[in-house]
């Protein structure tokens, strides 16, 4: 599998690990998933797990990043709402700001992102 991935890249998870329409936290460090992936059919979007309000993780429980109807992303710290496709915050404390998008590609069933990632931060 590794031969399909460049040395500057890393495999995050498998597309088939994520139910269509759902999200998944990935790349745990110190008990915190650094990135999360949202699956839409055969496509994914990957974001830094860090809300532009207080730069804290978004989910309230492992992998719980979305509204119950999967229509948008919610930061479960203070309820910021984000569009899935753009990461744009359309309601909540950081309205007008956006999640940090991580470029990604699919290599077969593998979700692939760069090895070099922006740092997760504790404050803005």
């Amino acid at each position, binding site marked *: 599998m590794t031969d399909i991935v460049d040395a500057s890249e890393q495999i995050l998870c498998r597309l088939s690990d994520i139910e269509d329409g759902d999200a998944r936290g990935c790349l745990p460090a110190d008990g915190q998933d650094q990135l999360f992936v949202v699956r839409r059919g055969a496509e994914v979007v990957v974001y830094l797990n860090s809300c532009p309000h207080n730069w804290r993780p*978004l989910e*309230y429980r492992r992998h719980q990043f979305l509204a*119950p109807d999967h229509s948008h992303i919610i930061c479960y710290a203070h*309820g910021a709402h984000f569009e899935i496709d753009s990461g744009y915050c359309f309601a909540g404390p950081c309205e007008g700001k956006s999640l940090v998008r991580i470029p990604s590609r699919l290599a077969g069933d593998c979700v692939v992102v760069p090895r070099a990632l922006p740092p997760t931060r504790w*404050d803005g």
Partner: protein
Amino acid sequence: MNIVGLDSLVFGVDDIAVCATYLEDYGLSKVDQSATAARFEAIDGTGVEIRLASDAALPPANAPAPNLRETVYGVGDEATLAAIASELSKDRDVIERDGVIHTFDDSGFAIAFQRTVRRKIELPPYRVNVPGQADGRPVNQIGADPAARPRPQTLSHVVYFVPDHEKAERFYAERLGFRTTDRFIGMGPFMRPQGTLDHHCLFLIQSFNSHMVGLNHFTFHMAGASEVWQAGYQFEQKGYRTFWGPGRHLFGSNHFWYFNSPFGGAIEYDADMDRHDDSWQPREAPANADTSQIFLFQARELWAPGP
């Protein structure tokens, strides 16, 4: 006015089952649950009510769902209830239903008042062994019990984002007799009603945009720091995500551990809050990392040194 503290927080949520599991895992006791509503209690009968956000029985929302829909205060006597009704009906609609007074504060939050549901609780002493002091644990009594399941004792405080913190503070101070115990400059006051000495049961945070509305966080008192840490650690082991903590605040001195939640704001475990009477002079400080806590830690997986 003899307002003794928070009796209940009512939330409009998207998924009753998920929120019910969350509250049980947090440590509250289920009183009842249906497909559209549920109620959970701490040891003293204060607690949380959840309803579907679309429920017409809820006061109108001031923030996108899920969020807080009503804050219910407990009062100590009928005279206080009557005084509140007469004071607030001077300039706003006040509805009385089944002995509960419902209205809105000056920031758009639904508030209610009732004869308190709080039960007097007598719990075994929270015992710690301190050199030079009597009253530690009795000899041969064990302190660290991995099977212990610390339970929230009583609803402690709620925190709102408000459009104008000075106007919001005036409402609670002038209309309901709340005392400001301390204040973050430019952010907002910590307030306690007259029926309790707890440092705060309400904290107001200035919003800096029109979308920063509704709940910031809410919390229940635990018996002490060790219970905050053990309950928080167990909660995190279940997959729930820390927002901030564990640590210890400066204003209020309460130990804290905050978690993200499906209620529109964070939930906290707190313990060992300062108590103040009317002789206390409010302090003020700018809100920053140094003034927000005296220490801050991060939970780790259990670990042991090798041989």
